[in-house]
């Protein structure tokens, strides 16, 4: 029986459910010290002096500073970020020094005996502040990266449009809030370094360690421990913590473990980029798009880190899943003296799609055509051309997901019944239902996958065990299970004969980072090809049919291995035929394919407290093929809940460049009671380039609920609030303004 398409049980589920799975802090590492980080208290300044108070017994500790790092650079896109601040701090909580002690308690205590003396410099804390160029933090203009996407002639389009609608939208930081905080350990032996930890991208850490300590490929080994959630938050930051643990371990001559507590993790590590998005949209009187002029500004924080690629995805998704002959997207990410923002599920797209989707409400008001009809008029279909000039040849489910979400939620009926309900002043609440429709490109943007040149392999040992060899990590999303299903079916074997090798750079090839909704679609595709090659070899060795029992498989494997310990079949990335991208003009096939999702959000707003409660989310998502429907639905419900949090509860309060509420007590992520029941419809429009037709699903669900909720709040209250989060204070402020204007 084929495994693909079934809700096969989670591969590592029994270990996780029984408490046997070992996360980093669960590993008992003999002789291990505990490391802590001394951080900047100010957003910008020169370090004049670091004073170690003699009252503390420093001989018990190992201390590392910038001087202890051979090449003090955290390798990513640019070389601008030091592992430890060297003379100057560019954001609050920037690491300055490291301390290791045998006792976790004592290590934290030691931090209280260090004082840093600064010469403070004026900080740049917001996008507007950075744009003003009052202070220059980066290059000549504070711009980390700028992209320009052009199609047609946007100025001419706007001039010729009978209706032009303008809007400005603002979205805030968001904390990933994985329940396992960041944690890494490191140890050295004979000049070689091993790093183990909670991480998404083993080879990112591998590359960073090589640069920091001047090591060769073979001198660095990176092992993933069971990882308690990532959502992007463990994409790049483990380079930093891994480097810290390695620096301390190098100096101590002993293993060192660094495990952040919640408050340090929330305040110091990366978050979703805040953004300002401005739209000028030209339409015909009957609601057809003629021109979209979009400006995107993101806050990158103090160092470049991943901001250029976050901006790139935000830029390409900014027009939404609609065809428009004249488009201009002018996008920049700016430097500020705040902790660097980074990867978070959706990677720039939720920010720009929030604006694109909520803008339809404004257009609906201006044209008198409801937003559903407007979307239906303009949504992508097969053959549509995107803003980057990509022709959408196949697997375009935009209209299907929209119609399914509308139909299944009773959108039209509720829209009119809520209108009547809201007219009655005696009701204790207002009601609303709102829509959004989005697309999300699978895999790296543009030529990204070509540059990555990922490799993945399937091996068979003399013991008859089939192993999946990839650096793609299981972080809760189901990598292990999907890979075992794909490989089992490609081989025609039962799934329990397929094992997953733990991501360990000493054992698995570089299948690229575990990001960008690429694991199933891109790496799963590589594994399918590798498994096809193994299948051919196995057929030959077994005399024409694939053995179905472990013992028969073992016999065939012994023949196939011919004296070797194992036979390995590897596949490397090949771009799909006919896909072209030009980095210079930023045009062409931005992604091999897009996934599509629509949400209808049914909400009510308490007239006294202004609390928004989501009663129900109905969502349809076109993901090509659900390799495992239960896991796919789990991605949808989980991403939806994160987006509900972003829309309604999660409020990063920044003061003087630092988060003032870095606790789960006052940074509110949704509980079981805050999260609505969800109706999830998986739509399968197969993609010929994905394994068994699969497209990406990881990020898509995060893109779509927030604008639908804001649109529902618009119907409920009559106020279009162009910012998040929609906490009672925000609603109250807008409500008061509206009252005064009346």
């Amino acid at each position: 029986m084929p495994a693909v398409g079934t809700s096969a049980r989670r591969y590592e589920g029994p270990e996780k459910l029984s408490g046997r799975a070992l996360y980093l802090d669960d590993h008992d590492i003999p002789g291990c010290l505990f490391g802590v980080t001394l951080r900047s208290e100010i957003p910008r300044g020169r370090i004049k002096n670091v004073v170690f108070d003699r009252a503390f017994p420093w001989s018990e500790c190992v201390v590392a500073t910038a001087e202890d790092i051979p090449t003090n650079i955290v390798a990513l896109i640019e070389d601008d970020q030091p592992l430890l601040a060297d003379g100057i701090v560019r954001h609050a909580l920037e690491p300055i020094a490291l301390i290791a002690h045998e006792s976790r308690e004592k290590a934290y205590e030691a931090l209280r005996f260090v004082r840093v003396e600064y010469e403070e410099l004026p900080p740049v804390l917001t996008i507007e502040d950075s744009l003003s160029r009052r202070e220059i933090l980066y290059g000549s203009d504070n711009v980390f990266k700028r992209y320009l996407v052009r199609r047609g002639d946007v100025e001419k389009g706007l001039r010729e449009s009978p209706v032009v609608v303008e809007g400005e939208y603002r979205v805030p930081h968001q904390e990933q809030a994985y329940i396992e905080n960041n944690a890494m350990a490191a140890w050295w032996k004979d000049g070689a370094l091993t790093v183990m930890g909670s991480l998404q991208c083993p080879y990112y850490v591998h590359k960073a360690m090589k640069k920091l300590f001047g090591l060769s490929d073979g001198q660095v080994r990176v092992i993933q421990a069971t990882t308690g959630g990532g959502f992007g938050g463990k994409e790049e930051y483990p380079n930093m913590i891994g480097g810290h643990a390695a620096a301390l371990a190098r100096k101590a001559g002993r293993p060192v473990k660094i495990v952040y507590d919640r408050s340090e993790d929330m305040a110091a590590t990366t978050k979703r980029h805040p953004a300002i998005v401005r739209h000028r949209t030209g339409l015909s009187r009957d609601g057809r798009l003629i021109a979209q002029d979009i400006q995107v500004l993101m806050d990158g924080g103090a160092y470049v880190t991943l901001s250029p690629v976050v901006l790139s995805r935000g830029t390409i998704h900014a027009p939404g899943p609609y065809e428009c002959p004249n488009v201009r997207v002018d996008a920049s990410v700016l430097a500020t003296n705040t902790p660097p923002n980074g990867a978070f599920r959706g990677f720039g797209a939720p920010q720009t799609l929030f604006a694109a989707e909520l803008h339809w409400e404004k257009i609906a008001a201006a044209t008198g055509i409801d937003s559903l009809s407007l979307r239906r008029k303009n949504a992508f279909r097969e053959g549509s051309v995107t803003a980057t000039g990509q022709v959408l040849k196949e697997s375009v489910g935009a209209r299907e997901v929209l119609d399914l979400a509308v139909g299944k939620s009773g959108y039209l009926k509720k829209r009119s019944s809520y209108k009547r309900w809201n007219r009655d002043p005696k009701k204790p609440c207002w009601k609303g239902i709102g829509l959004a429709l989005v697309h999300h490109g699978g895999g790296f943007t543009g030529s990204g996958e070509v540059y990555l040149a990922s490799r993945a392999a399937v091996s068979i040992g003399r013991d008859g065990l089939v192993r999946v060899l990839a650096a793609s990590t299981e972080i809760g999303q189901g990598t292990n299970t999907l890979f075992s299903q794909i490989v089992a079916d490609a081989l025609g074997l039962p799934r329990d004969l397929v094992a997953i090798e733990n991501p360990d750079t000493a054992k698995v090839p570089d299948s690229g980072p575990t990001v960008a909704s690429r694991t199933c679609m891109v790496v799963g595709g590589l594994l399918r090809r590798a498994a096809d090659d193994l299948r051919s070899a196995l057929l030959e060795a077994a005399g024409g049919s694939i053995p179905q029992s472990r013992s028969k498989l073992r016999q065939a494997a012994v023949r196939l291995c011919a004296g070797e310990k194992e036979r390995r079949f590897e596949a490397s990335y090949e771009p799909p035929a006919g896909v072209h991208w030009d980095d210079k003009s930023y045009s062409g096939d931005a992604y091999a394919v897009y996934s599509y999702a629509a949400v209808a959000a049914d909400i009510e707003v308490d007239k006294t407290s202004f609390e928004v409660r989501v009663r129900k989310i109905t969502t349809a998502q076109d993901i090509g093929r659900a390799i495992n429907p239960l896991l796919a639905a789990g991605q949808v419900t989980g991403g939806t809940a994160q987006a509900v949090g972003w829309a309604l509860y999660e409020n990063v309060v920044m003061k003087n460049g630092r988060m003032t509420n870095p606790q789960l007590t006052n940074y509110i992520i949704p509980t079981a009671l805050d999260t609505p029941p969800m109706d999830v419809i998986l739509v399968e429009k197969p993609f010929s380039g994905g394994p068994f037709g699969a497209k990406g699903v990881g990020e898509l669900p995060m893109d779509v609920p927030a604008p639908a909720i804001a649109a529902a709040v618009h119907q409920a209250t009559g106020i279009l609030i162009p910012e998040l989060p929609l906490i009672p204070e925000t609603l109250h402020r807008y409500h008061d303004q509206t009252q005064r204007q009346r």
Partner: protein
Amino acid sequence: MIKLNVNGKRRSFSGPLFKRLIDVLREDFRLTGTKEGCGEGECGACTVFLDGEPVNSCLIPVAHAEGRKVETIESLANAKKLGVMQEAFLKRGGAQCGICTPGMVMTAEYWRRVGGSPEPEAIRNVLAGNLCRCTGYQHIVDSVIEALGRRRKKARGQKA
């Protein structure tokens, strides 16, 4: 010295009386199934039973457990077989990254043992002290319903 019963075994602890129960379980007894997510009683990842009642073990000084019965996630399964609640979580997709899972399963198991209601609203209410960032809770609620349903089926079967 503190004497307590952990997962049916008599244990003793002779360190600081105010050491957190979670640290004693993890560091002194090497029961690492209990997880720390926040250290301030918000996330519930450290949920264990103290005399059968779920508590946040990050908020309990070990002295408070003197002479009492502590049960952790490790007590729910034996080497070969998962418990009813764990099995239901596996079947219904209630665990993803797994870090909130031990605490979540303990709270759900408490609900099962006290004969709690299988209504989704009631289950959401009892789970509201356990944060999960992966699942959006829907599959967790389904898992608990599954486990409670099994109990009810069993009960009905016995009557007949």
